[in-house]
């Protein structure tokens, strides 16, 4: 029913088994499945593996974040050197969830779609057919409609890692860029493209830019602790007032977080004046093809990018 390996050598994920770290995504799904009489899968508890948690500096000035590192530690320990990633992490979920949820789990969590999470409903992502949200209720759905599935990807951290060209390290010793882990989002059955049985052991982030600055904003209806309608992260290196390098990504709008090269190109070499911000914000909406109920997200993408860049400007 449950195995608790203590070393990587002991780690084995049998067919059909589910790995568990902080449990902050999985436990809700287990409770929900149990409510309709579904038996629990075999579990592999990763938290006992030596070295599973912890942040260490790499020789080239980057960091290796153990997959079992709690999000509160990521937010706290990386605040100075990786501000965009740290603020993003500090802004997601609730303090209790950040205290116990892990960065590896955050990257591999399943979608928060209300159809997928409803134990009485099957969809293409939960083993059934089709997307009931597409013809049903999708107020919180995507604005870039590129997959049969219409609910956005849940990981804010994945969005931030895209701007760092980060990678994940797997238990077999190989690495995989986060952009490949996420893929293009077209396959409606997947939330990530981790091979069957593979386990993430760490997130690898290259050295930050000198004097790197970052900003994050999430558009929601309430104070905090709400899944983003739209979110945006930006990291930048300034030379004086000029943006020398930057990375910008948006979330809550597609089945994967989207890096926005068009906005980055407009910002690079420019000062953050209102006109530049407006142009970059507008560029982030290029290609949007919203659903009947998500037209508002196009305006909200521009608004969210604007607010994020204004925060970057300070």
């Amino acid at each position, binding site marked *: 029913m449950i195995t608790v390996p203590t070393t990587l050598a002991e780690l084995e994920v049998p067919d059909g088994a589910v790995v568990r770290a902080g449990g902050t995504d999985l436990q809700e799904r287990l409770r929900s499945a149990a409510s309709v009489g579904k038996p629990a899968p075999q579990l592999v508890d990763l938290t006992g593996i030596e070295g599973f948690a912890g942040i260490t500096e790499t020789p080239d000035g980057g960091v290796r974040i153990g997959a079992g590192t709690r999000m509160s530690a990521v937010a706290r320990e990386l605040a100075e050197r990786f501000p965009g990633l740290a603020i993003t992490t500090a802004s997601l979920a609730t303090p*209790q969830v950040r205290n116990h949820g892990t960065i590896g789990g955050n990257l591999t969590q399943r979608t928060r779609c209300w159809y997928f999470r409803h134990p009485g409903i099957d969809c293409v992502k939960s083993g059934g057919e089709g997307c009931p949200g597409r013809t049903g209720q999708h107020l919180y759905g995507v604005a870039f409609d590129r997959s049969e599935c219409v609910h956005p990807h849940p990981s804010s951290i994945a969005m931030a890692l895209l701007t760092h060209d980060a990678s994940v390290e797997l238990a077999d010793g190989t690495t995989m860029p986060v952009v490949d882990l996420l893929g293009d989002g077209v396959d409606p059955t997947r939330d990530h493209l981790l091979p069957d049985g593979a386990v993430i052991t760490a997130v690898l982030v290259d050295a930050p830019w000198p004097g790197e600055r970052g900003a994050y904003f999430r558009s929601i209806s309430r104070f905090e602790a709400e899944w983003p309608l739209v979110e945006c992260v930006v990291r930048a290196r300034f030379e004086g007032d000029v943006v020398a390098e930057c990375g910008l990504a948006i979330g809550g709008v597609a089945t994967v977080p989207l890096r926005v090269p068009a906005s980055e190109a407009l910002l690079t070499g420019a000062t953050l004046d209102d006109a530049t911000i407006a142009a970059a914000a507008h560029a982030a909406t290029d290609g949007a093809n919203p659903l009947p109920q998500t037209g508002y997200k196009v305006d909200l993408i521009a608004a969210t990018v604007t607010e994020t860049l204004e925060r970057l400007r300070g």
Partner: protein
Amino acid sequence: MTTFGSTVNGTAVKIDVEGPEAAVDVLRDQLGLTGTKLVCGGGVCGACTVTIDGEPAASCLTPATALRDAEVTTIEGLATTGELHPVQRAFLAHDALQCGYCTTGFIVDAVSFVDRWRADHGDTEPDRHTIADALAGHLCRCGAYDGIHRAVAAACRGDHDEPGDEPGPQRVDGWAKVTGEAVYTADVRLDGMLEAVIVRSPVGAATVGPLPADAAEHVVDLLGDHREVVWAGQPIAAVAAETLVDAQRLAAELPVEISPKPLVTDPGTARAADAPEVHAGKASRSAAPNAAEGAAFPSRWDGNIRTQRGSGFLAGLARRRVAKARRAGDPRLVELGVGTGVQLHSSFEPHGTVADWTDPDHLLVWTSTQAADDTRRHLADRYDLDPGQVTVTADFVGGGFGSKLNLSADMFAAIELSRSSGRPVRCVLDRREELTATGNRPGSSTDIAILVDDDGETRAMEVTADAHAGSAINGAYGMLMLLMYGRAPKAVTNADILTNAPPGAPFRGPGGPTAAWALESAVDQLAHQLGRDPLDLRLTMDGNEKRHALYHWAKDLDVWKERGPVGADTGRYRRGVGAAAGNWLYMVDPDTEVRVSVEGGGRLTAICATQDPGTGSKTLVANAVASVFDVDPVEVDVHLGVATGETPHGPTSGGSRASASLHPTAVEAAEALKEQIGSRPTADHDGMAATAKRGGDRGIRAVPVTLPMGIQIGRGFSGALHVSEVEVDTLTGKVRVLSVHAGLAVGTIHAPDQARNQIQGSIIQGIGQALYEQQVIDPHTGLTLSSNLEDYRIPQLGDTPEITVHFHTEGWDHVPGGGVGLGEVGSVSPSSSVGNAVFHATGWRPTHLPIRPDRVLEGLR
């Protein structure tokens, strides 16, 4: 099975797990630490918060295996020496709780925050944002946020470090709530108890086959002879087993044939002639659920449209005047089409019942109800027992808000399965069931027209009020608009638009906020159209003297005096101030009895078969008795929440009738006892008692009959006025409520802290209705998608505005005790005041609730 050790509240324990269990399951079910509550099951509400190695955790999302070799602290670990933790004392001192169901989780996390804060910043007070940010993982449905904020701030300052420095008066059952000792129905565990699960319809319309007799060892049918289901989640049957997991599996496998039929969930679609008929035929129509407390009004069915006989005063004249003004383009006519979404009660303690019918002559029921004594009588009726053979216990009730007034499926399941199995049976709903199947405030679509004369006096009002109560009838709310703004000709048409959605139910001030959204938006719009101050216009239109006093009070508020013209702000952030008025009936249960006695060595003791679902009725009774004997209310033992054949009848906690029924009766009983024993009760008086009965008021009553459920409608209307200040972010569409001033005209206040707390709570719930809360139904299956607390968005601590509460206490001298209830009237106008403030800020009139960011962006485009 894995076994490991852990240290829980300083004690070494052994824990056995299969693997998938969450920490909360082990703490509650294996270790019996029921002070930790399970509410959302999704890490959103924080009611299950414990600390693991010093770090607060949502124990519903924490695998039980995370407790291995850990130091765990639950609420029970905070006051082990019998002395409260300073944070617990702060929560008592600031009345930072109502029903108590979220309280223990808040406290465990607050202890952690206060310790960190004081270590880093000394005994200083954090700002509001810091506290809200630290406790963002908690929700309180009662809306006790203002007290919670004040309590945490005070604990950070070190105000409550010494025992005994909390000022009175306190909530008399507060101690049990801040320590986790309060036992709610969901915490009751009897020897040999089975766990029951309700089998529900997976679709919104279907024909259900018969239940095979041998379908399961312990199974009961809940559908009866009429085998058509009309909403997804409708109870069909219930099964019981030794464990919850076994019962869930049996429920999933129950061999009942369900043949889906076409369904309709959208009221607009339901109106079409070719829409599937929700209640086709007489049998279905007479079996239709009732969204209201009273009997169904005479009405005419046309497909899914059920129109009540028109009501009003000189209705024909009203229509002619409106039509004429419309043709003439009269600027004194205002017309609006508005709508509201469906709001879910979301009580934090779910509906649940434990039944023990192992003695055929005595049915013992623990249930989460707002109506313990009514429930006892109705259960006796239903199961052919003498009312004296039924005991209903509802000692602590984790919120109800109108959803726990009637008999419910969890009661039938537990009781009937106990009868058939000969064992005690527990049936407690999970969050998805609670947010699907326990009622809701119906949505609405209203067309309203108001015509005034040159002075602003009402000349005519015409209203078409469509209720969206799902598959229920009687969602009507239009007649409430007849009760305000003068005796001019008025025409109201009420209709239910039926759909295959879960049935509506009473919800604080049933129909009140719905009617106010139309009426108060229209009056506000009219004031704008006429260039009048909205309060001045109400002073002209509204004849209610008590509310006149509130209008004058509000005109003196700085926030109103500084209010500029509509839409004056032009920047990204725009501020606005809006007002809305509320009206409610005064109700009383004349059969209420309270017995006051001396027990246990000179202790004053009050007993009544009513309950305290967080409203403060225990404290109110204590205050009443204490006032007669001039003692501290905590010197009075109050026993509510148990209804037997012996206990004096108590009122239902609904319809704002409890306070006006209980307080004068408790005073009268205490005075009678004082006549017998003098002013100082001692052990010599043990066993002496006096009982009083409320009776009706002398003189005229508004309605000279007693309605079902023991309600008399008394003379006079209670009044409310809310003035809200908002900030609209025109870039992102987000609306924040900055401050709310509430004025209430309900007479003398018998439990001031609790009254203020409840009024604040109705404002929080009104902000939820105004900005966030909305039931969402899947059109394909009829299932409720907003059936978790992530997707059903209730206000957070950080959404709480600065709130001031003003009580206008005059005008109720004809009522014994001089005051009436306030649970309903305080709920009527908060959401409309927010809407009017958004209009004032932006010049855009929001017509549909909730005012979500997408609607704001569209409105301002």
